[in-house]
């Protein structure tokens, strides 16, 4: 592992005048999968939104490699190799599956058809419904589509907000496998997961967020083994 590919350094951020993140710092090493866990409303999604330019950090910096990206517009951040799967409203309801995927690749220079074909192979659930409007998809199908849309850009860094929410156990496993595959192909991943045990299970490192700051961080395995973390944040057993 070389230096961090993504650095969040002393960031305050929030919505309007409401502060959510409080002096938050974390790093994502090149080639790593890192998982953010924590209670509802802890600020996990807010971290991703701030990194991706949906929110502007009030203070502090966000860097991709050495480049400052805090406050850059999302459409520009996509172009320097970051992808993002939002937690909610993550598909274009009135566009077909195929159009959704192609929209994921508007910033690509070429090879769109190949990637899309490849993605259909990987997610047969989508292949069956190429021409259906995304709003007709079931909750789980939507989630898969949202994930696939972000992959079209083949980003260097992928931010995923709760990839497994609403997925059936078998589909969830597939998606986690895919996350790992994507990671092996060279994408560094920062993931938020409520299915914390599974999420940490495939991660290299973990961060426990509470009330806008990082409460615990470390190797994913050590967090899983930490009884206090388990009790406070992870729940008794695996959820699947």
């Amino acid at each position: 592992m070389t230096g961090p590919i993504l650095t969040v350094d002393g960031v305050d951020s929030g919505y309007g005048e409401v502060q959510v993140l409080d002096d938050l710092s974390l790093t994502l090493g090149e080639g790593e999968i890192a998982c953010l866990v924590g209670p509802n409303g802890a600020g996990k999604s807010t971290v991703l939104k701030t990194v991706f330019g949906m929110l502007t950090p009030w203070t502090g910096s966000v860097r991709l490699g050495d480049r400052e990206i805090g406050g850059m517009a999302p459409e520009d951040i996509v172009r320097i190799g970051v992808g993002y799967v939002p937690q909610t409203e993550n598909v274009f309801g009135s566009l077909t599956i195929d159009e959704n995927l192609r929209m994921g690749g508007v910033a690509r220079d070429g090879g769109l058809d190949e990637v899309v074909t490849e993605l259909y192979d990987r997610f047969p659930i989508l292949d069956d419904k190429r021409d259906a409007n995304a709003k007709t998809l079931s909750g789980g199908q939507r989630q898969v589509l949202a994930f696939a849309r972000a992959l079209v850009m083949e980003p260097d860094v992928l931010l995923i907000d709760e990839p497994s929410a609403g997925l059936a156990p078998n589909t969830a496993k597939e998606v986690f496998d895919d996350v790992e595959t994507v990671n092996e192909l060279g994408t560094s991943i920062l993931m938020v997961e409520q299915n914390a045990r599974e999420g940490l299970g495939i991660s290299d490192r973990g961060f426990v967020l509470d009330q806008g700051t990082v409460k615990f961080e470390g190797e994913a395995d050590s967090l899983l083994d930490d009884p206090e973390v388990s009790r406070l944040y992870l729940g008794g057993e695996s959820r699947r």
Partner: protein
Amino acid sequence: MAQILQYLANGLVFSSIIILGSIGLSLVYSIADFANFAHGDTMTLGAYGAFVAFGVFGGLGGTVLGLPIGFFLALAVGMALAAVVAVLTHVLVYKPLDTDSIGLLITSIGVAFVYRAVLQGTFGTDFLQYDIRRSGPIPLLLDTLDVAVTQRDVAIIVSAAVLVVGLHLLLQRTTLGRKMRATADNPDLARVSGIRTDRVILVMWVVGSALAAAGGVFLALYSQLDPRIGFNILLVVFAAVILGGIGSVYGAMLGGLLIGMLHELTPLLSDVGLPISNAYAPAVAFVIMVAVLLVRPRGIAGDMT
């Protein structure tokens, strides 16, 4: 029979104008997400732009479709003017606003007033006309089909068709149409996907207002030009957009065709034994529109894309 053909021919000309107006309105409706009450006045603006330009280019020789070439140049100027004004309005007025779609709607009423005030202040309220000779019905059609259609009518229909086909190609052959729909659907996600929504919105304004301007120019060519022509026709254009199904460009075209036809076909009602006076023509169009909406609550092209 000739009677019906004649009404249909009238309807087609009128529809062409409505269609041009409704496309732009529908684009703004779906992408900027508000009912733009300044759209009618954008049409008027284009018509006046072309009027001034025609004063300059009018003398250019040669004719196309029976209209002087200068007219088409003037048309282009009118379209460009409307596009520039619309973009400026977007940048200066709509974009900085922090409000919802109804707030935008109300703002657009204010914008409409300002456009109209400028036109009225500059050109007065009396009606004007493009200085182009009328040539009467085309003899061939009159003799064979007993339908009176003028070269001007043909020019309007053909030009509208060219513009509509052009737009169709633009939407189908480029990703623009899809980007527009994506932006309309979920602007945040569009940006996340890398779509430069600012640009898409600008292009939308350009395309929508240029087409509106074309509609305005043809409207003025068809009847005459005064500061209220666009506003007077706005309700009908709205009806077309809604009837077609908000957000669907093709629906708007269909709605425009239908409303234009209905408007011109009212006299037929008395032929089929419904003694309804022409004074009720707009009412009939509206009642039919409401009836269609009851059957298809989201317009004809409701769920079509």
